[in-house]
């Protein structure tokens, strides 16, 4: 027979160097993060302090959780631009609900639990709406979520009359620990982020559902022809995104105790940028949750380093951020094979 195509299975040789290359590719974002941290520690003595690192991780947790939801959506070749506006809306409405509900739920953990449940439901419902319009209504994801992006924020602005929606002061103490508290020395938002990241990675890599998400993003026709319930899975990714936004809003509210029309501004771009930096292909088919977390940290550290050093003129902050994002993406190989 032909000896070009060796039939004996499991041969290495050529596989050896391919594997090494793949490892370097995959480590791209992590490499960028490490380089960034080295630069940070060189440029500022306060950078590697426990408090600073904790601050940045905690701040990044909010966008991080949203970005993990976005990883699912993008892996299935979808897009959700409305997440920032939805965060503002969920935060604002949750605050209003909690303010009104003190009568029935008191001012303790029961009220907080009610607020959390409400946020998750609202987030999931908004996600379902997006998903249904995109999948069943057959309108482009970009268009639908551009629209809901405007609608959500408008509604929030209308509800707040342009000002801020604030949590009653009596409730502040009850919700404070969600952002400012810590368990075993680690801030609560960080723990939540880790928990969600681990769960999401397992779902995306090891479950049937996760594989269906990647298959749909890789080639929707093939998925349909292979008995995958395409519509159902796609809508679910948007619901997951909405749930993540709900969780993120819950974590956000205690920070300032208020939601304003400028809450969540540009969060969608940061979330999507984190996903891409982390190695998930924008065209879908491959998702990397841990990469997304690394991406969020990279963005968080960039802004942190720029604040910690007076070195670069603050006018150029945006330019530095943009340049670093491009470099981080270049460190990965082209993922068009999906």
């Amino acid at each position, binding site marked *: 027979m032909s000896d070009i195509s060796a039939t004996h299975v499991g041969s290495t040789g050529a596989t050896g160097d391919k594997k090494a290359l793949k490892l370097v590719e995959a480590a791209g974002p992590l490499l960028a993060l490490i380089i960034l941290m080295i630069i940070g520690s060189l440029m500022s003595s*306060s950078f590697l*302090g426990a408090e600073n690192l904790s601050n940045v991780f905690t701040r990044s947790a909010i966008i991080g959780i949203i970005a993990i939801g976005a990883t699912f959506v993008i892996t299935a070749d979808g897009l959700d631009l409305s997440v920032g506006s939805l965060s503002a809306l969920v935060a604002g409405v949750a605050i209003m609900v909690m303010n009104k509900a003190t009568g029935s739920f008191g001012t303790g953990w029961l009220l907080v639990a009610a607020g959390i449940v409400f946020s998750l439901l609202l987030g999931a419902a908004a996600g379902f709406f997006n998903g249904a319009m995109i999948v069943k209504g057959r309108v482009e994801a970009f268009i639908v979520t551009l629209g809901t992006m405007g609608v959500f924020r408008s509604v929030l602005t209308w509800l707040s009359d*342009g*000002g801020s929606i604030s949590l009653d002061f009596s409730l502040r103490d009850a919700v404070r620990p969600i952002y400012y508290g810590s368990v075993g020395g680690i801030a609560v938002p960080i723990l939540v982020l880790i928990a969600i990241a681990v769960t999401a990675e397992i779902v995306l890599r090891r479950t049937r559902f996760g594989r269906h998400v990647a298959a749909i993003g890789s080639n929707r026709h093939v998925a349909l022809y292979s008995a995958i319930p395409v519509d159902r899975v796609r809508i679910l990714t948007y619901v997951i995104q909405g749930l993540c936004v709900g969780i993120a809003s819950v974590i956000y509210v205690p920070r300032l*105790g208020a939601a*304003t029309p400028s809450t969540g501004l540009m969060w969608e771009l940061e979330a999507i940028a984190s996903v891409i930096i982390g190695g998930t292909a924008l065209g879908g088919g491959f998702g990397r949750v841990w990469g997304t977390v690394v991406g969020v940290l990279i963005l968080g550290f960039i802004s942190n380093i720029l604040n910690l050093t007076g070195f670069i003129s603050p006018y150029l902050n945006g330019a530095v951020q943009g340049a670093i994002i491009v470099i981080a993406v270049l460190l990965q190989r082209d993922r068009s094979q999906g």
Partner: protein
Amino acid sequence: MFSKIRNLVAAGGLVLATMSGSALAADATIGISIPAADHGWTGGLVYHTKRTVEAMKKAFPNIDFVVVTSSSATQQVNDIEDLISRKINGLIVLPQESDPLTEPVKAAKAKGVFITVVDRGLAEKNIEDLYVGGDNPQYGTAAAEYFKKKFPDGAKIVVMRGIPTAIDNIRIEAFQNALKDSKIEVLDMQYANWNPDKGFEVMQDYLQRFPKIDGVWAGDDDAALGAIEAIKQADRKGVAVLGGSGMNKVIKLVKDGNDMVDADIFYPPTLIIPAIELVTMKFATQAPINGRYVLGSPLITKDNASEYYFPDAPY
């Protein structure tokens, strides 16, 4: 099928929109073009505008008002052109930015429209018939004076700038000028964009970077709220926080006595109120009014705080 319904709804919406735009016959129409409510101050601006317009409409039913908000300078240019084509008699405009808005406003002036410019000026002088404004240089100077008075023997402070615009530049320049030859040292100035979330982040990082901070000028009250939370979390004591613009929440803190915030700078969005009232008077009662009305930006302290406190306003 679905797409047909979609198209029908869109067409219907369009018809409704154009219908609502037609003006009824009135003695005069006043067009108001202001920035959209994208942060606290502009939120207050829109609120007070609407409130005043309602009141004026009740008092003078023969005067018509058209209010448009825009989220960018380019959109505002389009808005003004639309207003001109609706044949307004008076235009009250708070320009997003001076330069791009100068030409359209000039064009309106050439058509005989009575021009009122609020707060931010145009690039050329003498276009407007009436100017109602805040005093941005005084804003910056008042902040500098506050820190000089509070720390007569010198101090280390940090500064947060606002959205990169002409106003921010004017205020910061005045602030820096007033601090020349003083013992106040400015450690750094980063952008917080008058945003509470950004204020929080920037303050956290300042606290990491500088072991000793005596005071922070957050640029305005939104950013100040963020800074306050960051200071609380870091459990740092003895940091004086100054914001600006007179947000009711912060004024309350000043009124009630607060160890971090003991002052504010008056620069509220209520300056639109006299502008609208004056222009309405002009058309309703034939009261000729021209000139410049500059409302001061004094420092608000515990002593005079109750004067400036509007608990029901959104800002």
